[in-house]
């Protein structure tokens, strides 16, 4: 499995390695659906070792983001590697997501925000 999850307090941390594409997307979509069914879900998606992301995978992240915000929660992306960052910038997805440089910064922001939305 090239992705795994863990939890620190109320924050769910999803780490995706290698390619994040149509093959990986359905399982992560299922996981995100479960987590975003909770009230005020706080999700950190670590993309530091993700070297490729396709449109099916972006759709899963967007769907997760929308569901998070519907539930007054937040989904933050961290550590975008250069190839993935380029895709986010080219498609203007970087304007939609909250993107942070490090997990520690994202964890602090999520913990601090609690019920409040993170300013992007």
């Amino acid at each position, binding site marked *: 499995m090239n992705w795994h999850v863990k939890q620190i307090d109320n924050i769910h941390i999803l780490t995706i390695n290698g390619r994040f594409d149509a093959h990986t997307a359905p399982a992560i979509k299922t996981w995100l659906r479960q987590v975003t069914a909770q009230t005020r879900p706080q999700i950190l998606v670590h993309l530091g070792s993700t070297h490729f992301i396709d*449109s099916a995978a972006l*759709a899963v992240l967007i769907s997760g983001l929308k569901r998070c915000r519907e539930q007054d929660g937040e989904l933050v992306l961290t550590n975008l590697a250069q190839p993935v960052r380029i895709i986010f910038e080219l498609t203007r997805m970087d304007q939609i997501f909250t993107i942070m440089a490090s997990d520690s910064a994202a964890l602090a922001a999520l913990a601090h925000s609690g019920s409040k939305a993170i300013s992007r």
Partner: protein
Amino acid sequence: MKQHNQLTAQQLAALTSELVSYQDQLAAIHELAHHFSGPLDLGDALHGLVQTAVRALPVFSAAALLTLPQQAPLSVTSGDEPMANEILIEALAHIQTQGDYVLQNTNGRDLPLGCRNRLLLPLTMRTQIVGVLVLLDKHTGPFTMPDVKLGQALTAQLDTQIENTLWHQERMVQAVWQAQIELAQEVQRCLLPQSLPCVPGLDVWAMSNPLHQVGGDFYDFMTSANAAPIVSVGDVCGKGVAAAMLMTMTRTTLRNAAAFLPQSRPAQLLQHTNTALYSDYTDVGMFASLFVGQYLPEERLLRYANAGHAPVIYCPAQGDARLLPVGNASIGLLPSAAMVEATIPFGPDDVLVVATDGFTEALNDQQALFGIERLLEIVSRCACQSAANIGAVIQAVVTAFCGNQPQADDQTLVVFKGVA
């Protein structure tokens, strides 16, 4: 000597009887195999199995139950009185627990009322027990191992018939699905422009090649006497049938906007499309990138708005190819987004290439991406050629780059070149 001859005669009689019995059994197996040789529904096959088993063993009563996935259970009984469902279901549960035949010469103990002996044999589908043959009360006494062997020879015939029937049903489902996909492919092909538009001042070329029979990419040209010609290129996330359905919806919404708002600018068309489709895209968890360009022939300008689509490459007559900025979020991302647009000069020898990510994300044998830099380099190098040649070179270079790697995504390409 006389006693010896009498014994030999008895043995001979027993051997003859045994041979006749074996011959009857072989005939029964042959008869059943012959019965199953033609096209047969499973109800008839089950009936044939039960009747043959009653004659071949022989037994006073037999029944069979078959429970195939996604099909109504089938049951057949040998006599006029059907065997109670509870007995058949209990027998199936028993044999599924046991995993093989069940021989019960118990003289009535633990057996249905009025029954002395019972033999249960499994009916299998691809190693899974999906039914049971129930044989009750053999004429000549308790069931024996040869009876089990004979019963297994008979049920093996039915197992083959089940396999053949399922294979036939799967082939039928595949054939129907294939016919539907081919129809969808034809519909989608018809939705793409059937010819390239003749626009004074422009040399135009376009292609679209889905990964599967249908895909989520599209391009479109809208020309009318009263409005500046419009080009659109879209890419619904994902691939295959789901993407194709949304592609059709997106193209139609954009066309309607252009038809009913004839003086609209690209940004307004994108905004209308996003507003109309946002909730649908959200419900299905998808999105689409969409580029809309409008050529203004008198001013020799290209006005465009871009909702998340990349790459869009502009190569001015005097200069190198560069990416045009995106400006807007993709369709389906934000509920009410005001779209921005921009204008670029588009005179003779200016080139615009709008591709989908099926080109830039193509992989080679070393799993390296083709990427945007290579595409920019090709456009810069070929910009002096016709639109069709630029398109052909891009296709050829990407194909050569990929080597033995198969196409991995829908690919769509539109090339505009300004002409005098």
